[in-house]
């Protein structure tokens, strides 16, 4: 079937172009100025940071997830501290020698990572599941500007909450441990690194979640992949032959990221900051792959 153009309307019935308002000089009922010159990249970035902050703060799941992360990390630290104090006398010399109060105080991070990781995934995947992405990208067709703004806003928010959380977990658990004189303090060697590192660990996992969501565009897929990488992968690596295990296991995201939370790093782990950098490396890989998908695929 060929395209058929119907005869154009008789020119005499067309409105005279000279009487049509020119859109550029269109009288504006509300007296708003017509669009000015194009804003620069910096202006657009600043505007998008504000827009992404409005998005993040205006859904209930953000506040709930952040509070849950804090509650889980702090709650576990304090509960486990009570448990250790109760069991201390029955723990034996070996158990007592292995006890490390700072690492212990941030052990709730193992569970808190799941909550903040899910929030990271949701921050991106909700754009797709709700269709908001179409409004977002219609307003900001420069997709990378939107994506970088989202990452920046989310990173700062997660960082603030995570570091406060691990600090509070430490501060509240030490008085409990002090009952058996097994607590420690900020000034002890390695302790600041453990507390800050645990906070950064949470941020890295959250960013990994965000990147996976940009890559997979699906909430459930992103969260289950994240849990698989963080929790299931170390378990699977346990089935490797021993000599392999020593070489490979330390590179798994959880094991690499956990190194920074050890006051005395174990021999089968990466160095503390190296391990954390490796975990951030995984997050960056996911974020870059997510960016590629965002830029290449239709929204």
């Amino acid at each position, binding site marked *: 079937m060929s395209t058929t153009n119907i005869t154009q309307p008789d020119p005499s019935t067309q409105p005279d172009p000279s009487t049509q308002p020119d859109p550029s000089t*269109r009288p504006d009922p509300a007296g708003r100025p017509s669009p000015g010159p*194009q804003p620069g990249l910096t202006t657009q970035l600043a505007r998008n940071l504000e827009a992404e902050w409005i*998005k993040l703060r205006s859904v209930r799941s953000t506040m709930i997830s952040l509070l849950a992360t804090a509650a889980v990390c702090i709650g576990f630290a304090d509960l486990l501290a009570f448990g250790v104090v109760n069991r201390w006398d029955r723990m034996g010399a070996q158990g007592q020698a292995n006890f490390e109060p700072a690492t212990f105080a941030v052990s709730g991070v193992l569970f808190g990572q799941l909550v903040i990781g899910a929030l990271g995934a949701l921050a991106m995947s909700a754009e797709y599941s709700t269709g908001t992405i*179409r*409004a977002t990208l219609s307003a900001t067709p420069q997709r990378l500007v939107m994506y970088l703004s989202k990452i920046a806003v989310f990173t700062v928010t997660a960082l603030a909450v995570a570091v406060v959380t691990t600090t509070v977990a430490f501060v509240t658990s030490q008085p409990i441990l002090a009952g058996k004189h097994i607590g420690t303090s900020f000034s002890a060697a390695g302790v600041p690194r453990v507390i800050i590192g645990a906070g950064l660990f949470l941020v890295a996992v959250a960013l990994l979640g965000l990147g996976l969501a940009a890559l997979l565009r699906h909430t459930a897929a992103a969260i289950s992949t994240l849990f698989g990488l963080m929790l299931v992968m170390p378990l699977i690596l346990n089935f490797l032959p021993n000599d392999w295990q020593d070489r490979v296991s330390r590179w798994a995201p959880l094991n690499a990221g956990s190194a920074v939370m050890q006051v005395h790093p174990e021999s089968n782990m990466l160095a503390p900051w190296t391990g954390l950098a490796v975990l951030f490396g995984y997050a960056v890989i996911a974020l870059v792959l997510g960016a590629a998908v965002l830029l290449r695929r239709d929204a």
Partner: protein
Amino acid sequence: MIEIRGLTRRYGDTLAVDDLSFDVPPGQVTGFLGPNGAGKSTTMRVIVGLDRPTHGHVRVNGHRYRDDRAPLTEVGSLLEAKAVHPGRSAYNHLLFLARSNGISRRRVGEVLGLVGLEAVAGKRAGGFSLGMGQRLGIAAALLGDPATMIFDEPVNGLDPEGIIWVRTLLKSFAAQGRAVLVSSHLMAEMALTADRLVVVGRGKLIADTSVADFIHRASSGQILVRSADQPRLRTALIAAGATVTDEPDGSLLIEGLESPLVGRVAADSQVILHELTPQRASLEQAFMELTADSLDYQGQPQNQSQPQPAQPQPEPASAGTGH
């Protein structure tokens, strides 16, 4: 002003839009009409840069939409009702859109008032009816007070009052000199709203014309006549060169004569006319006639899937990518 030139969009084996070219001029409502799956939504998504064209290009106010750093001030679009986070309030949805384009908070309040959503501005959008969702979408399109506006099926889900409201709104936008593109599969709605029609079927342009011409083209040129003396009139009309058919209800269906001539023949033969009606097709009939070949999903078994490239007279590829 939107210029679409040679736009083609392919999804895998499916040709959703096939070499489509048309303009959306300022000061008019351009109705974008076609059956489901004709490529209307795809075209609109390409205009605002959500989908990339396979070939061809779209210019909005002379440039690519993707090059615009504050596009809401140039193009307002409603592509999908309720493309909103259900947990976010209407106000915050509009606020983040506004701020990303440097539009003031005050303007957010204004557009909420324009669409009548002030009372529920702070409510989570998840509880909105489809009609309220449409109003929120229209508010978003209005944020930047743009000179070009795009609406995909804006009356979907609206009650009669809402339909009249949208119709009036679209016409007032055009009257203010804006270029308005509105898609619909509701032909009657387009007849009332649009100044011109761009009709597509299977991704191809079928017609780009005024509403009146579109109907005229599909009209048969037949005239229905009732009179006090049908046999005498029939004889006179046949003598004048007309082809006359007797209708079951006693009226005469005339072909080959224009209405003024039919009246003259009746007067000359002194027959009193009771009715003389040119048989104009309705917009629906015109639409059905013109798109009959391109309807994607008819009540028949699908006979062809893809055209063979070697066939001399290939049918357009099936375009089932409506949203």
